């Protein structure tokens, strides 16, 4: 069999959590609302209505771009993407095409061998979401509440070579959106959506394959990874059989654990993009962009690195502790307060990670520090290690062991004391007592 290389590019859509829509001031709080109660002439595409750009959305999009090492275009514009489908009433989606807001970025991710690789980001641009369609009994029901909710699209170059990279990238983006506070990035609710373009080529080939399969409408990281893995296998098998692969869109069937064809692209889409004459251009000076870059909060991957460096905690602990911004901040607050009580950052990190504590308020800090102070720290938790200590102590205190067995229960304390001494007190006495009793039966 020939050796193949996987070629994957990702498109991530993220719905921003602004208060109002992208081009009108209708509320974006449509989740669970009655249909068509969050609309106006602009987002319904009524004749004569004029769109107005949401400032917050543009700032959010720029923050995303800057965090992903993009350049901000000196000049960017909105264009109309024309197509016939009732998910937008206007007959076009306002998007960006030739003049996107953010371009040429990159993000470092880890591959399946744990090596760092750079994924190039083609663009991060601003657009609007579409209405929601429900198909039933030969009819389509339309709700325009979601129509024109701000949406940012982040597009990579086809740089992914394995699914570990894809997963890491998607997780990092989700974490970033939450750190920046620009979106809840909930996949199930559709705040964040992934699309993967997947193809394979003979190893050593440089050109991109002549086809690509677009995986769409997949609403979890896990399913996306499963779908990509399935696709790679399917495509290699097809190529080995001498079959020709075609450009098509596929979805994921979780029950059958396979991808299925949603649509075959017979010809390239012709969206006839053109600049939207209703919307003025966006222009930013390098000073404005520089200021914005300075104002970015510490990014999750920066925080991770700093935690490992400054607090000398393990990479794994740092990953867990920086997963969410709030818990990372509380961890740092705990470190500050811990210092006054001679509690080390590593002790706090270990305690939080081992006890699987979810930090979400100030009160958690006090209770954690108290527990650490009282309970002793760096406790030996490993069962086999504890048993080894107990058995060693029994052998070394044979007289006391015999005395205990013959009914002098107080003799147990001698052996217990020996274990405490051996372990420098890093064991739970109740636990050891229990183990001693079990071993002396």
């Amino acid at each position, binding site marked *: 069999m020939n050796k193949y290389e996987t070629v994957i590019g990702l498109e991530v859509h993220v719905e921003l959590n602004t208060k109002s829509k992208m081009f009108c001031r209708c509320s974006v709080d449509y989740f669970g609302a009655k249909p068509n*109660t969050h609309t106006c002439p602009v987002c*319904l595409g009524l004749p004569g209505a004029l769109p*107005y750009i949401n400032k*917050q959305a543009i700032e959010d999009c720029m923050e995303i771009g800057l965090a992903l090492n993009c350049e901000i275009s000196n000049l960017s514009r909105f264009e109309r993407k024309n197509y016939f*489908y009732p998910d937008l009433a206007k007959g076009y989606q306002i998007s960006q095409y030739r003049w996107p807001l953010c371009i040429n970025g990159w993000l470092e991710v880890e591959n399946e061998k744990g090596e760092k690789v750079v994924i190039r980001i083609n663009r991060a641009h601003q657009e609007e979401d579409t209405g929601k369609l429900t*198909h039933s009994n030969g*009819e*389509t029901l339309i709700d325009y509440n979601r129509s024109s909710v701000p949406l940012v699209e982040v597009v990579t170059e086809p740089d992914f070579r394995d699914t570990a990279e894809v997963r890491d990238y998607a997780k990092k983006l989700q974490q970033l959106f939450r750190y920046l506070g620009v979106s809840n990035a909930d996949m199930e609710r559709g705040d964040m959506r992934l699309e993967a373009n997947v193809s394979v080529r003979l190893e050593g080939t440089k050109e991109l394959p002549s086809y690509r399969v677009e995986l769409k409408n997949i609403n979890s990281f896990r399913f996306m990874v499963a779908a990509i893995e399935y696709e790679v296998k399917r495509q290699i098998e097809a190529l080995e059989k001498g079959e020709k692969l075609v450009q098509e869109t596929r979805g994921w069937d979780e029950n059958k654990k396979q991808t299925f064809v949603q649509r075959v692209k017979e010809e390239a889409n012709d969206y006839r993009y053109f600049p939207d004459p209703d919307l003025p251009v966006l222009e930013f000076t390098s000073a404005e962009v520089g200021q914005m870059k300075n104002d970015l909060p510490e990014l999750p991957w920066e925080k991770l690195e700093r935690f490992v460096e400054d607090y000398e905690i393990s990479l794994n602990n740092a990953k867990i502790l920086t997963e969410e911004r709030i818990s990372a901040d509380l961890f740092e607050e705990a470190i500050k307060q811990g210092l006054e009580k001679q509690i080390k950052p590593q002790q706090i990190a270990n305690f939080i990670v081992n006890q699987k504590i979810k930090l979400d308020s100030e009160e958690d800090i006090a209770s954690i520090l108290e527990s650490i102070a009282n309970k002793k720290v760096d406790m030996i938790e490993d069962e086999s290690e504890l048993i080894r200590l107990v058995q060693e102590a029994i052998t070394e205190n044979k007289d006391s062991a015999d005395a205990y067995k013959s009914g002098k229960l107080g003799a147990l304390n001698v052996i217990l004391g020996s274990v405490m001494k051996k372990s420098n007190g890093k064991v739970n006495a109740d636990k050891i007592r229990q183990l001693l009793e079990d071993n002396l039966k």
Partner: protein
Amino acid sequence: MKLSQDQVKKVANLANLTLTSEEEDKYADQLSDVLSYIDQLNLVDTKSAEPTFNVTDLSNVLADDEITPSLEQDAVLQNASAKKDGFFVTKGVFENE
């Protein structure tokens, strides 16, 4: 400049129109005339002219992110040819961006 029947078909498809073959012929002629007429613009040398995408010359016109009231559902749906439970209704469409 003469449009082929295939080009007319493509344009009709993009505009979501179904044409008979007589209509395709007819529009091929008519659209070709229109294009030839417009083609006269090519007589002007525009090498040094920037395209005019907006006539206002404005930039960075941005609105604060503040909610204003939306239309009432009844008002939104009042001119809809078909509606049901607060939704607009169309005949079934399939994913076909």
